[in-house]
C-alpha cells in the first residue's frame, strides 16, 4: 500500500529533509551548543550563525535583519503585534480594526483587547475570508492605533490587496499588521513597498521546523511595541528568552530554499491544484470555495453536494490527509466563519474540505488523491438521504 497523500500543507509542511539534516548537524555540532548570549567564542559563534540566518529570514519579506524579531511562531508574532502595539499605545487611542476572517491568533488577541478596554471594529470579509481595502478605509478613524489583516486566508487561500491598505495606514500614521503565515515563502513579499509595519510568519508553513517564527517590524513599529515576555533582553529587548540556535538556523535555511524556488514552485503547485480540481469535477456536484484568481498556489477549498466533511475525511483517511475547516484553528468544531460569510449554508460549510498542496506534492499523488476522493464521495452519497443533495445550497 502506498503512503497516504499529504494534502494538508496549509496546516503544516513536512520539514524539508535538507533543513532537517542541517538541523541535525547543528544539534550535534559542539561549536554551536553554547548559549548565544554567552561572551565566549562558543556563544559568539552561535550568535554569528543566528545573525546570518536572520538575514535570510528577513529577506523573505523584504526586511533588514535589524527589523526582524524572532518568536516561537506566527501565533506569538500575531499576539506580539496586536497586544504589543495596542497596550503600549493606549494613551494615543483605543481603536483597532481587524476582520472576522482572521486566524484565531489575531481574533482572540483582539478579543483580549476588548476585555482591556479597547474598541475593535470587526470587518466582515467580503471575498473568501479577505477584506476589501475599501472596508478598511471606511473604518479608519482618528484614534485607530492598529489595523490587522491577513495576507492569505488560511481556509480558502484568498489573497488580500495590501498595498491600498498600507498606503492609507501610512498616510494616517496608523500601524498596519499583516498575518502572512500562509503566504510568506510562497509569494514575493516586500513589506516596505506594501506599507506594512508588522508582518508575522512562521517556519513550519514553508519547510522549516515548528516552534519558530518571526515578526518583521518597521522602525516605527519597533518603537511602538511592548513585549509579551520580559527577561534577558534578546531580540532588541522585545522578545526575551534564550535563542534557539538550531531552530533559527533551520528557519534560515528553509527561507533560503523557499526564496530560490518560489517562482517555479508557485507555478508548479498551482498547476497541480488545477489538475486536482479538474479531476474532482468528474464526480459532479462539487463547488469551489477558494477563488480561482487571487489565491495561494497550493490551496483548494471545496465541497461536494450530499457529502459531509468529517465523514469524507474519515472515508479517505487511509489514502489522503486533508483538513475539514481549518486545522490550525485547532480542534474546535465551530462552523467556519469565513465560509458562512461567503454565503454558504451551514450544511455547505460542514461539507467543505481544504485540500492544500506544497513542495512534495506531485502529479501522481494528485491523481491518486482525486481517485480516492471521488470514490469516497460516491460511496457517501449512496448513504445520504436523496433530498440532501438538492437542498444543500
Amino acid at each position, binding site marked *: 500500500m502506498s503512503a497516504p497523500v499529504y494534502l494538508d500543507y496549509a496546516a503544516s509542511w513536512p520539514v524539508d529533509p535538507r533543513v532537517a539534516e542541517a538541523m541535525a548537524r547543528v544539534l550535534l555540532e559542539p561549536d554551536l551548543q553554547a548559549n548565544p548570549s554567552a561572551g565566549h567564542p562558543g556563544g559568539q559563534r552561535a550568535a554569528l550563525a543566528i545573525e546570518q540566518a536572520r538575514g535570510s529570514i528577513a529577506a523573505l519579506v523584504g526586511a533588514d535583519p535589524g527589523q526582524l524579531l524572532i518568536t516561537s511562531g506566527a501565533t506569538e508574532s500575531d499576539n506580539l503585534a496586536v497586544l504589543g502595539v495596542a497596550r503600549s499605545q493606549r494613551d494615543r487611542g483605543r481603536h483597532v480594526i481587524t476582520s472576522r476572517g482572521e486566524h484565531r491568533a489575531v481574533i482572540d488577541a483582539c478579543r483580549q483587547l476588548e476585555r482591556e478596554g479597547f474598541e475593535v471594529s470587526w470587518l466582515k470579509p467580503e471575498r473568501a475570508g479577505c477584506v476589501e481595502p475599501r472596508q478598511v478605509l471606511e473604518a479608519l478613524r482618528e484614534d485607530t492605533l492598529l489595523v490587522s489583516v491577513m495576507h492569505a486566508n488560511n481556509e480558502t487561500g484568498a489573497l488580500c490587496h495590501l498595498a491600498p491598505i498600507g498606503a492609507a495606514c501610512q498616510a494616517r500614521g496608523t500601524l498596519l499588521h499583516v498575518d502572512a503565515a500562509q503566504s510568506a515563502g510562497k509569494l514575493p513579499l516586500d513589506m516596505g513597498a506594501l506599507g506594512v509595519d508588522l508582518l508575522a510568519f512562521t517556519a513550519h508553513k514553508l519547510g522549516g521546523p515548528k516552534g519558530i517564527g518571526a515578526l518583521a517590524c518597521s522602525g516605527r513599529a519597533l518603537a511602538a511595541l511592548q513585549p509579551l515576555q520580559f527577561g534577558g533582553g534578546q531580540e532588541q529587548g522585545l522578545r526575551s528568552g534564550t535563542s534557539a540556535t538550531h531552530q533559527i538556523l533551520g528557519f534560515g535555511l528553509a527561507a533560503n530554499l523557499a526564496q530560490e524556488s518560489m517562482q517555479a514552485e508557485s507555478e508548479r503547485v498551482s498547476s497541480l491544484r488545477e489538475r486536482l480540481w479538474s479531476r474532482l469535477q468528474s464526480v459532479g456536484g462539487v463547488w469551489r470555495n477558494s477563488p480561482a484568481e487571487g489565491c495561494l498556489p497550493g490551496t483548494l477549498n471545496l465541497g461536494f453536494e450530499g457529502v*459531509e466533511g468529517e465523514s469524507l475525511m*474519515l472515508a479517505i483517511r487511509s489514502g489522503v490527509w486533508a483538513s475539514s475547516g481549518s486545522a490550525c484553528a485547532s480542534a474546535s468544531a465551530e462552523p467556519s466563519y469565513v465560509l458562512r460569510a461567503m454565503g454558504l449554508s451551514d*450544511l455547505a460549510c460542514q461539507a467543505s474540505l481544504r485540500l492544500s498542496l506544497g513542495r512534495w506534492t506531485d502529479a501522481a499523488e494528485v491523481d491518486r488523491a482525486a481517485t480516492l476522493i471521488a470514490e469516497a464521495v460516491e460511496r457517501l452519497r*449512496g*448513504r*445520504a*438521504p436523496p433530498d*440532501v443533495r438538492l437542498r444543500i445550497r
Partner: protein
Amino acid sequence: MMAVGGYCTEVLRLFAHPAHAGDLEATDGGVFRGEAAALDRTAWVALSALGRDGRAIQVRWRAWGCPHLLAACELTASQLEGRPLEALAGFSLTELAERLEVPAEKLGRLLVIEDAQRALAASASSSG
C-alpha cells in the same frame, strides 16, 4: 478504546461496514419511512423498515452527518431489526452514545436519530 483519529474502534468498524445502509423497496410487506433533520443541519437521518407479521424484519438507514452519526444509524438499524413495529420508537440513545464514545458536543446530533425513529414508528402505526 480511542483509536488514532479521535474515533473509537466501534465507530470505525460501523463506518467502514454499514451493513444496513440503504433503502427498502416494498416487496411482500409494507415499507415504513421516517426522516428527520437537525435545525442547524448538522445531521439528517432517513430510516426505512420493512414490516411483516407485526415486526420490522428489515431496517435500513441513510444519513448525512459526521462519522459518529453514521455509526449510530448503523447501530440503531441493526438493533431495530426484528423488533415489533410498535416498539420502533422510544429506544434510548444513552447506551449507544456511550458505546460509540460520542463526544459531548455531538450528543445533540444523535437526537435526530430519535426523531427519525419516532417518525418511523408513527408511519408504521398510521398504516397499521
